[in-house]
């Protein structure tokens, strides 16, 4: 299938001793040295951490002890996932030099499995963006065409995994930030149900939308990583504790499953993208699935509802950056208020400031009812629309993004136009549902297209199984290989 760096394949190389774990880690670290200048995927490499974990795994293998599927697998974390002792900045000047004193729960879970952390990856500042270009370090580039964006906000993870500079990575998805870059980079991105994966240690953007999930080269890998990171966590009061492992469900028949197609998802979708999605639907039909046409008129409010609520939550969450306890502090000030204002104005980039201002505006007296409260009510309407839709179907299928990856440099020109990129991804976050993006061929420009599968809450196993069935049935036609990074 051309997917030479999947977790299962690397695990096999390790257990059959075709390569040592340290050698494998070095291969990836060397590839980062060579190719990161071109892709700008990593903002920090962590070779000591990687090699220390690799040595532990090699010792286990040498002693003839079995290793778990994720042990020794080279991976990466988005720069908003806290790593004790390793700088975590959300690619923002305001967190420059911030070194967490604790691990995010997802990272401690993977660490226990001796995951080999290669480094922290690029992202839009505080995950606010759809191109990765609001990063303090400049945007990550698309491994399929470095003149184009990798997408965002988890653009660095997607560029790293898509460019074979990591076997997998964890990103965060507030309005599409895992699925959209995965779609742009031709790989798999999975956003679990809200509450399925602990957010402890994820730097908060919009707390009722944020969710951590895997970005991988295959659906099977996504299931493997999802199973490893979904666990009840008392440190996250929204942690659900509901857990059905996904991996054992892979391979289940999807004959007779009803796949809902809501026409609103296809408004404004580029014709070649639409064509790739329709072809994918034929594959689902050939697997015995049935399609059901749906109408969900309230989806047209998704984008403004998302931007109003996410910015409101962000304006509150980002209130903590005052220059006192961590991160950047302005050099000169006249009093404490001046210190806080200058620190924030110098530390936050333009897009973050725009969103804090919008959030503050919609929460301020006189506008709260018209915007914030109205958006909350519409959020309820959208939640109900999905509940009704899932009375009529088992899963829904939609494009992940209405277009393919576009040329770099667009964010700065038109913020609102860039927001439109998220039109097919935000509904899932509004309703707290699981959603996955799987490669489904290429557009007229030769760039990858992603299809999105959406399920009811906590239907991870069903979503991943259907995606896996599709991926295996579509084979090479869905997947475009990249010549970059590690080849084994």
């Amino acid at each position, binding site marked *: 299938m051309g997917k030479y760096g999947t977790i299962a394949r690397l695990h096999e190389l390790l257990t059959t001793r075709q390569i040592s774990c340290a050698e494998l880690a070095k291969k990836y670290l060397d590839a980062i040295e060579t190719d990161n200048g071109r892709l700008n995927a990593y903002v920090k490499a962590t070779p000591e951490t990687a090699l220390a974990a690799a040595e532990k795994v090699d010792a286990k293998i040498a002693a003839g002890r079995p290793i778990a599927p994720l042990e020794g697998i080279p991976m990466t974390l988005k720069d908003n996932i806290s790593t004790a002792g390793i700088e975590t900045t959300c690619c923002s000047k305001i967190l420059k*030099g911030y*070194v967490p*004193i*604790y691990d995010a729960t997802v990272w401690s879970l993977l660490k226990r499995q001796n995951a080999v952390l290669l480094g922290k990856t690029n992202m839009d500042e505080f995950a606010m963006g759809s191109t990765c270009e609001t990063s303090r370090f400049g945007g990550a580039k698309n491994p399929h065409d470095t003149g184009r964006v990798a997408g965002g906000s988890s653009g660095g993870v997607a560029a790293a995994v898509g460019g074979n500079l990591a076997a997998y990575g964890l990103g965060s998805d507030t309005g599409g930030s895992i699925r959209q870059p995965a779609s742009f980079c031709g790989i798999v991105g999975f956003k679990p149900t809200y509450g399925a994966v602990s957010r402890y240690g994820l730097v908060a953007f919009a707390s*009722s939308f944020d969710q951590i999930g895997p970005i991988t080269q295959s659906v099977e890998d996504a299931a493997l990583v999802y199973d490893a990171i979904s666990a009840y966590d*008392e440190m996250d*009061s*929204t942690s*659900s504790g509901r857990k059905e492992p996904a991996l054992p469900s892979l391979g289940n028949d999807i004959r007779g499953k009803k796949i809902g197609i809501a026409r609103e998802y296809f408004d404004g979708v580029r014709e070649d993208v639409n064509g790739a999605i329709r072809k994918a639907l034929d594959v689902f039909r050939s697997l015995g699935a049935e399609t059901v046409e749906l109408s969900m008129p309230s989806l*047209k*409010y998704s984008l*403004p*509802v998302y*931007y*109003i609520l996410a910015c409101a939550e962000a*304006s509150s969450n980002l*209130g903590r950056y*005052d*220059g*006192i*306890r*961590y*991160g950047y502090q302005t*050099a000169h*000030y006249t*009093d*404490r*208020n001046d*210190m*806080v*204002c200058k620190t*924030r*104005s110098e530390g936050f980039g333009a897009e973050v*400031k*725009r969103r*804090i*201002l*919008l*959030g*503050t*505006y919609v929460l*301020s007296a006189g506008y709260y009812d*018209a*915007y914030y409260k*109205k*958006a*909350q*009510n*519409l*959020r*309820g*309407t959208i*939640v*109900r629309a999905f509940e009704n839709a899932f009375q009529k179907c088992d899963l829904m299928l939609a494009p992940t993004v209405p277009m393919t990856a576009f040329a770099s440099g667009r964010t700065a020109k038109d*913020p*609102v136009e860039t*927001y439109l990129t998220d039109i097919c991804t935000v509904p899932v976050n509004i*309703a*707290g549902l699981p959603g996955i993006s799987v490669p489904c061929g290429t557009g007229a420009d030769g760039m990858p297209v992603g299809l999105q599968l959406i399920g009811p*809450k906590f239907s991870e196993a069903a979503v991943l199984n259907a995606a896996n069935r599709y991926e295996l049935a579509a084979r090479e036609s869905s997947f475009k290989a990249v010549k970059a990074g590690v080849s084994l």
Partner: protein
Amino acid sequence: MVTHEDVLKIANLAKLSVAPEELDGLTKDMNEIIAFADTVSAASADVSDFDNINGLSNVFREDVPVPSYRREDILKNAESSEDGYFLVRRRR
């Protein structure tokens, strides 16, 4: 219509200072974003008792002290500290 004064008022609430040369651009951006957000005010929502979309309830534990992070570790990330406290100078 968002005016320069509105932007300055909101910026003050958000503890952001807006440089004079940023004001025009920011006001224009804010107007575009607000116009985009305005589509919701015209919409009719069928839910009015909406408060918890994720269906979660509060999680409590017994109020007993548990070990936490060490003070000196927490203070390591501060710009300045003194005698175990965060230090904020009057001016700098």
